[in-house]
């Protein structure tokens, strides 16, 4: 972009998604779907937000969760494009279903 818009107006809502802040990550949260009870606490507190919540059958199928885990409850999935690796989800998960491992780059 070479010209600044009048009033520095940004006309495209939410276009910060072009910034892939996942590159900031030093530690990486990894959900263990065998332990996850789908309480949504990680989704609730992720500040980016970088935890997706899948409620319908179709999007659930696309998650990394094992098929036997796709019961009625919603499924959470970490969006590594944006996860900065703060570790809040890892710290708050009530059943310790999130591992926090060194990022490999």
């Amino acid at each position, binding site marked *: 972009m070479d010209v600044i818009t009048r009033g520095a107006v940004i006309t495209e809502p939410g276009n*910060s998604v072009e910034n892939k802040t996942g590159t900031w990550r030093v530690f990486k949260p990894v959900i263990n779907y065998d332990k996850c009870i789908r309480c949504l606490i990680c989704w609730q507190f992720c500040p980016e937000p970088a935890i997706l919540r899948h409620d319908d059958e179709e999007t659930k199928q696309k998650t990394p969760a094992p098929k036997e885990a796709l019961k009625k409850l919603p499924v959470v999935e970490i969006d590594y494009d944006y996860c900065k690796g*703060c570790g*809040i989800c890892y710290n708050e998960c009530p059943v310790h279903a999130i591992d926090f491992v060194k990022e490999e780059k």
Partner: protein
Amino acid sequence: MNYEKEEFFAPGHGMCAGCAAPIIVKWVLKLAGPNTIVVNATGCLEVATTAYPHTSWRVPWLHVAFENAAAAASGIEAAARAKGEKLNIIAFGGDGGTVDIGFQALSGMVERGHNVLYVLYDNEAYMNTGIQRSGATPWGAWTTTSKVGNANPIGKLQPKKPVARIIAAHNAKYVATANPAIFNDFKKKVEKALSYDGARFLHVISSCTTGWRHDPSKTVEIMKLASDTGIFPLWEVVDGDLENMRITYKPKKFKPVEEYLKPQGRFRHLLKNPEYVKKLQEQVDAWWAKYGHHYNP
């Protein structure tokens, strides 16, 4: 319509990993829904979510200056009223922009009774310019302008300005303190604040990993300790009726203030002297002795 599953706040912003402010914002927007206009005071939230030409906001959003978010929101509300439009007008300001420099604009907004929800995300210092003390910085906190050394081993020497009580004393429609880590209480208060007409004010604690000097993964845990030690009490006042202030949350057993201090670098010096810890505990105990009878869950 329930918009809880939707995100009106987009990722890709530049807030520090583990910053609590986006947790507050994303939930206020989820509960308000798309029929919303946001005004933002200068500060971390404004700077880091709107680095031109990008924005993380999926609702109309306006920034004017540091000191006048409440004035700008008042103007939008007056225009909406003139046009007969019914929508949520929400202002977000940091503690510097609310408790200090934006206080006059806020006081005017509340006195004129504008139909605006003002949300203070209180990280207890001017963080975006490098951790300077504000009127909301608590007693005993280190900042770059309340330095700790031989001349002053305590840090900030003055207590926190009771801004929410001051706004309630304007006879604001609804005033509450809230803590995203005490999630049900936080959510209920945001919903309640959104349901009223008139000037509403939410004072929300917002941990800053950079300025409070703590591990980013501890953000929610530390904020929870703020209310479980009684340091950040949670209450609400309707129509300025401070005599009938209602304390909405009380831990079964208060934790000692040390537990809140320990994980935060900004309080490390206090732990070296039991006298200082005792002094802080006394301040907290005095608040609860004075107001504790208002507990009414």
